[in-house]
Each structure stands twice: as structure tokens, then as C-alpha cells.
């Protein structure tokens, strides 16, 4: 066997091991003929459905409408590069993720089955956003924060997203959507003008408000 063939076969076999184990195997459906293989696959790829006295909970739910469009805004602006969307389990880091109020349980694979693309994130320059929709931040707070983060959180290093907002002259009545500025931002705005979110801004906020991976207590999250 000549050298070239040795290198080729060796490179092929070593690489194939991880390609099969880490890529191909998880792509196959979890419940299948061979129990051993089934245990190695990513479990629970179907939504969790619970029927309690006629009230049916199906979780997770795919995004639609404004929140779905908002996900694209989040994706295009690279929000993932500062914000994670995953909660680590209790035995990680003194259970800090949960103690910080970012969740009431860890996240598991089933939380992400409809995420396309999945944006788990690898940096926490900013806080985790896995459950930002149920942590008490209402739409108006988000608009003000996106317009200029330092207005809501002094000292923040988050970029401002004023390009998602429109400054326009008030015609007749102020818009119902207009956001309320405070402090020096209010002082800087000329009289007779208002700041109104664009459709993109509203979609982005709808996406943020849809983020909830903690309310439904998945059985596998308690393991």
C-alpha cells in the first residue's frame, strides 16, 4: 500500500468517526430500531403535549407573524454575539443562571426544536435572553432600551438601534406608538417631534416578548 493510500485511508477513517458520531447520528430520528443508538441520539424532538382537564398545552410553539419577522431582525443584527439563549443546569456555576432570575429551570434540547436558526450564543457580554419574554420587561421598556440602551441602563455598552426608530413631526395627535424619552434624551428632542418605532422595531420586540423557555416545566429538565 503506497503512502498516499495510507494517508487517505487514515484521514478518512479518523474523520469518519466524528462525522458519524457527532453529525450523522443526531440527524436520525430518536426512536428507532436499536435502543443503544437511540440512547445516544438527541432525545425528545417532538413537542411536549399536556392535556389537563381539557386545557391542552403544546410546547414549544413555532413563531409566527410579527415575532417570526422579529427573529430575522435579531438574526441580521447579530444580537446573538452578545446575548446567549441557554440556561445552564444547577450544578454549573453555583446555579447562577437561575439565581439571577434568568429562568426557573435549565434549558433542554426540546426547547429549541422550532428555532431556525438556533441562536444559543457563546458570549454573555449582555444578559441571557432565553426567557426575556417572561421576566417582567414590557414592550415599552424594550423600545426605550433599543432606542438607546444607556437611557434605561446607565453604563451599558450595548449598541443603540436608533436606525430602527423614526423621528417625525407630530401631526395633530401624538402617535400612540411614540416612545417616552427621559433625561437628556428628552431634552435633546425638539419640541413637536416624536420617536416612533418602525415595523422592524415592533417585530423585534414581539420576538423578544415571545422568548419563554421556562414556564412549561418539561419532564426532562428535572433530571
Amino acid at each position: 500500500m503506497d503512502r498516499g493510500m495510507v494517508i487517505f485511508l487514515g484521514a478518512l477513517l479518523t474523520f469518519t468517526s466524528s462525522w458519524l458520531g457527532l453529525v450523522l447520528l443526531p440527524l436520525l430520528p430518536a426512536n428507532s430500531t436499536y435502543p443503544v443508538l437511540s440512547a445516544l441520539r438527541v432525545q425528545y424532538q417532538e413537542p411536549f403535549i399536556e392535556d389537563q382537564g381539557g386545557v391542552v398545552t403544546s410546547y414549544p410553539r413555532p413563531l409566527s407573524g410579527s415575532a417570526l419577522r422579529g427573529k430575522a431582525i435579531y438574526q441580521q443584527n447579530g444580537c446573538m454575539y452578545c446575548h446567549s439563549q441557554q440556561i445552564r443546569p444547577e450544578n454549573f456555576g453555583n446555579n447562577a443562571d437561575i439565581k439571577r432570575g434568568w429562568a426557573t429551570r435549565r434549558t433542554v434540547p426540546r426547547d429549541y426544536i422550532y428555532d431556525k436558526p438556533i441562536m444559543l450564543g457563546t458570549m454573555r457580554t449582555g444578559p441571557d435572553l432565553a426567557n426575556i419574554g417572561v421576566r417582567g420587561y414590557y414592550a415599552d421598556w424594550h423600545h426605550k432600551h433599543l432606542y438607546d440602551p444607556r437611557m434605561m441602563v446607565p453604563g451599558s455598552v450595548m449598541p443603540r438601534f436608533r436606525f430602527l426608530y423614526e423621528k417625525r413631526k407630530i401631526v395633530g395627535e401624538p402617535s400612540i406608538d411614540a416612545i417616552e424619552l427621559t433625561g437628556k434624551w428628552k431634552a435633546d428632542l425638539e419640541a413637536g417631534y416624536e420617536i416612533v418605532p418602525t415595523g422592524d422595531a415592533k417585530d423585534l420586540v414581539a420576538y423578544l416578548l415571545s422568548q419563554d423557555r421556562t414556564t412549561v416545566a418539561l419532564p426532562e429538565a428535572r433530571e
Partner: protein
Amino acid sequence: MTEVGRNGTDDKARYALERARIDASCRLPTLVWICSGVIWLLIGSTLALFASIKLHSPEWLFPDVSWLTFGRVRAAHLSSVALGWSFSMAIAVSIWQMCRLARCEMIYPKMLIVAAVIWNIGMVVGVVGILIGYGQSVEWLDMPPVVAPFLVTGLGIVAAWTVATFRNRREPHVYVTQWYLLGAMFWMPWLYVTAVLVIFGLDITLLGMNLRFSPATGVVQATTNWWFNHNVLGLWLTPVGVGTAYYLIPKVIGRPVYSYYLSVIGFWALALFYSWAGMHHLIGGPIPAWMASASIVGSMMMLIPVAAVALNHHMTMRGHFHHLRYSPTLRFVVFGAIAYTAVSVQGAFESLKSFSEIAHFTHYTVAHAHLGVYGFYAMIMFGATYYIVPRLTGREWASGRMIRWHFWLTAIGITLYFVSLSIGGWYQGLALIDANIPFIRIVRGTVPYLMSRSVAGILMTIGHVIFATLVVMNVCGFGRSRSGPTLFVEKRVTSVYEPAALSV
């Protein structure tokens, strides 16, 4: 390695002539890929400075321009330096080394130039696409999937060329660098095609046939993504970097590699263990436990090939470290080789849970990443450029002083980068796992370190501008022509380089 002839001078002259012929045949394609790399280095460095400054001073540098928002600039930076600079240089140094080690003149040079054009079309569309709002938020694969056919074609041509050159070789002995380059050229296209298909899927109609491949759902996207990203580092950049070091160190000091058997262990252990380590980017995340465990095992086992390579390089260099005073190539390459050992050892331990608990999600990992792609890989590519270009153009570098400035700016730059972000990131990590510390306090705590990183980045970028200037000067024929290599300082002993003695 080619053997020194029995009839000393005759054989030496013959081999020198053969090398000169090979170099002449490699000239245009290699220079095209090097220039591609240098341009992407400058673009990537500019984007890097923007990203770094915006992170601690978000009101600076056009905060209201949508295509310069941090999230987009950061992704564009990564694509520019990882896929633009790093890939271009990998291909440039690989094609030249493959010709040299095969001891035959370059075949199909035009195909390599076509590949460069196709690759760069994809890159421009991709990076501009990210900035104007088509970024995918998939790490290392941010460029819109429309560029995938360009990148696959460009890379595929180079990979096929590599196999053809190898089969066409005149030199029967297969040197360790060739194993690494062949491995890299085999693995990279497979990695990229797999990642794009699994994460983005395929839905096209070709010649009346509808080809569909549904992308993965849920966390499988993430596991495939990090399998890909980590393997680009370890099965593409690492083989090219380490293989190049294996070629250049013996070349410059005129001594053979210390141990054949260590190089065998180094290569095969890398091939076996590295590809399992990728999941360490997701430790603590929503992935099956067995994947996380496998990644920690793979990461720790990497200590074996890393030790083999480090030992081999060190023992080869032993007794010859004084050459570092003179040779730019050697200094950059040895810096890179030492950084390789450091970043790999760090990476192995970083995967352990108690380490990962603290360092994950922080700037510490950014420091680690840059020690690898810059401290190791980029520095070796600088060294390789300083060796290869004069042999292609027949002109030596215009100024040893400028090379000195390049070296010190980038060496001090990456050291400051690594130290400041590692310390800042570590403190950030310790604070993140203490739920009593308010988040904004943690953010403010990182700011001084982020500012140090910007300073480091400025130093590195100035170094890159000097490097680019030197390359342009050489290619365009400016600067003095010399009869010996450009060194850092004058050398009074007889040169170890072939064939003439120094004249300064």
C-alpha cells in the same frame, strides 16, 4: 527532505536550480493567493478595530449606521479574517509547499487562479451581505448561503489540484508536511459541505431535477455548527500551520526534523482526537451529556499530539536558537509554534467543567481564540510569506527594519491582547457565577480590559499595514535587490542559507 549530494557542490547547485525552476512555475498563482490574503487581512483588521472600539465605546464610530452596528461588524470581521485572510494564506503556502515537496513544477496554474477569483467573489458577496443585513447568525457561517457554491468550487479546485500534484510527484519520500496538507485538503471540503447542508439545507432545481435536503432542527444545528467551527481550526488551520512550521524550521536552520516517529504520532493523534473536541463550545448547554463528555475526552487527549509536535520542534531547534536573531521567517514561525503549544494546552484544560464554568461566555474564550488563530496561525503565515515571496519574485525584502517593526508590533500586540482579555475575561467569569453581583457591574468591570484590547489591536493593525507595504513593494519591484536574504540584523558568519554568502 532532499538529501545533500555526495558530490557536495555539484548536487547543491543542481538542487538549487531545480528549486528555482519550481519557484518560477509557482509564481503567479501563489502571489495571487497571497495578495488575496493580504487584502482580507487589511479589511479584517479594520473591521476588528471597529468592533473592538464599539464594544467599550458604543457612541463612537457611527453608532446610527445600521451596517456598522457591532453585531454585523463582528460577524464581518470573523468572516474576513477566518475565511478571507486565513484561507487565502493556507492555500498560498500549501500550493507552493506541495510543489516544492513533490519536486515538480506547478501543474494547472490557471486553475488555481480561477479558484482564487471564484473564492473572492464569494467572499465579497458574503462580507458585504453580512454588513447590509443578510447575516445568518451562525458562527463562522454568517455569510449568506448563496456564497456556498463559490466557496465550495474554489476550495474544491484547490483540493483536487493538491491530489493531482501529489500523484504527479517526482520525490518518492512523503514528508510530514505533505501528510498535514493532504489531510487538510481532504477534510476541509467535507467539513464545509456537511455544515452547509446540515445547517442551511438544500433546495434547488438543477436540470429539471429537484434536489432537496432538509436542514437539521433544534440543537443539532448547534452541534453540527461547533463540530464544523472547531474542526476548521484543528483540521484545516492547524495542519497548515504545523505543516508549514515543519517545513520552514528545518529549511532555515539547515537541519532535519528531530524525530520521524514523533511526527507520525503528532499527525495521527491529531486526526483521531481533534474532531471529537468541538462540543466543548457547548458545555453546560442543551446538548446530550455524552457529547459534552466525549468533547472533554477529545480535548484532553489532544495533549498527546501537541506534546509530540512541541517536542519535535524544540529538539529540532535545540542549539540553533541563535538564528532567531537574524531570520524573520524563523522568528515568526517559532513564535507561532510556541503559541500553538500554549493555546492547545490551555484549550485542553479549558474544556474541563470547573474551568469551563468560569470561562464560558466570557472574553476569556475570545483571548484563547485569538492566541490560536493569530498567535499561532497568523504569525506562522507571516513567517511563511517572508520566506516564499522573495523566492517567487527574485527580489529580497526592501527593509529589514520594517520587518522588525512588523514583528514587534504584532508580537507585543497579540501578547497584550491575550493577557488583557484573559484577565478581564476571568474576572468576568468569576463574577457571572456570583448571582449577587449585578450584571451591569460585571459589564463595567470588563471595560478597561476591552480598551487594552483596542490598543493591542491598533498595534497589530499598524504591523499589518507595514507587512502589506512590504509585500506590495516586493511584488511591484520597489526596494533594493540583494544577493542574500533580508535579515533583522547584519550577520558576520557565513550564511547557512543557500547558496551565496551575505552581502549587506
